[in-house]
């Protein structure tokens, strides 16, 4: 009898606790609801928006949709390792190395540059550019708006006279910044001379 009472009390207490915490949690989830982006948008925000199609999809958004549907996350060369890392973080999966089948990550960012006196004004590059970064009309010289160019290379191939170069984006004073110092231990390993020096 007394055992039964104990059990009943225990059950009752647990039920009450469960109800209370359930209510609290439910209230919290309503009260502090975070308006989440749909996952496709979140993925799309991480992708570099170069719109180059190297991933095998016609632009970043379609690839984002494909990822949301379970495609691999390592197909975007412009984003490279850091994008893969962020995607892995977002989706809670293991990061994988970049799939070399889709191309390699560029070392330096590039922009397209049209050698304007060679341009015949065929408008082929304009049609290729995914972000409308090329200005010009038929039979007139074309030019690239460097700020808008994502460096996707898509305009290079279609040019019949090969007058488009991809040039590395140079660093100027306004974009330069200090790099992180090499940590003490690495310094010692690489530069023994300074260890022996006066402390």
């Amino acid at each position, binding site marked *: 009898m007394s055992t039964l009472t104990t059990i009943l009390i225990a059950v009752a207490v647990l039920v009450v606790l469960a109800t209370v915490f359930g209510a609290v949690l439910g209230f919290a989830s309503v009260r502090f609801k*975070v308006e*989440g982006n749909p996952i496709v948008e979140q993925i799309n925000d991480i992708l570099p928006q170069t719109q180059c199609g190297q991933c095998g999809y016609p632009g970043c958004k379609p690839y984002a949709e494909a990822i949301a549907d379970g495609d691999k996350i390592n197909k975007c060369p412009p984003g490279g390792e850091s994008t893969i890392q962020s995607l892995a973080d977002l989706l809670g999966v293991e990061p994988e190395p970049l799939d070399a089948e889709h191309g390699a990550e560029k070392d330096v960012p590039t922009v397209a540059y049209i050698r304007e006196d060679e341009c015949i004004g065929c408008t082929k590059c304009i049609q290729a550019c995914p972000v409308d970064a090329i200005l010009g009309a038929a039979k007139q010289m074309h030019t690239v708006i460097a700020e808008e160019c994502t460096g996707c290379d898509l305009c290079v191939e279609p040019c019949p006279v090969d007058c488009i170069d991809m040039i590395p984006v140079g660093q100027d004073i306004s974009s330069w910044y200090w790099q992180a110092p090499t940590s003490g231990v690495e310094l*010692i390993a690489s530069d023994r001379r300074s260890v022996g020096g006066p402390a």
Partner: protein
Amino acid sequence: MLTLSSPHTHGSNSTSKVMLTVILATLPGLLVTTLLFGYGTFINVLLAVATAMATEALVLKLRQRPLGFFLKDNTAALTGVLLGLALPPLAPWWITVLATSFAIVFAKQLYGGIGNNPFNPAMVGYALVLVSFPLHMTTTWAVPMAVDNSAVPGLLDSVAVIFAGASPDAFSGATPLDAYKHMIDSQTSSEVLKNPIFSGWLNGGWEWVNLAYLAGGLVLLWRKIISWHIPVAMLVGLSLCSLLFGWDEDMYAPLSLQLLSGATMLGAFFIATDPVSAATTPRGKLIYGAGIGILLYVIRAHGAYPDAVAFAVLLMNFAAPFIDAYTQPRTYGHKAARRGLIAKSEK
């Protein structure tokens, strides 16, 4: 030409100097302990420092880090000194060696060496041997001179007990906190205090040891090696608890005993202030110190252990990062301080 980032000048301070100052500031305490309790602690300190340096060197070698650079920073030596001071004076040598090497290998180097350990290494080592060898850790406290002058071990006696496994019984006795805790169950406070361990001014010499550590701690404060927050908060926390909940001397050790016995002062100024594992913001330090004081009281009064600096510090180590996150100071130009950790959605 050399192009390094500013600033191009630097104060004369250095980590090894800081650590060395802390080691030097323990000397008064070590001296008094040796005078009153014999050579046991002195031997322990030497043994622990030697073990700490050797273990550190070994692990650095294994991790392929430059030896000289890291040994020079004196942090391993400091861990050794603190452990040597904290362990019972007549603990067998292997207890000291085990505690120290565990502290260096597991609590420090495995976390990535100096600066990366979330827990106070010395206290991790101490807790390990306390939990694993409770008998050795409770029966090897030396009887102080004030109680029985003849029972204080000489140098040779200490060496014999520590290294040769001679029985420490002739020299050892319970610590005042331990004695009080056990006797108060069946006796009144005044009866307990008649026990020889409470002879002398307060408790058979332990008060002098604590005062010596307090002096050393004040030196650290004066040299600006530590800030006042943690020791003050810890002592205040301990005192308040003792006054509010432990005022009944027939049940709990009195405040005087709480403050000036056991490892209270060593803990307040030398152990709780270990910067790596403590909270770092000013208000965080206050909370952290007070937490240690309260835990210390709770374990001493209600726990199974007569003294509890190690456990109190380790428990608060867990909380330190959390405390830091919620006690950031208000930055210049901001209306309020930022609180807490970053929610994922905020990025």
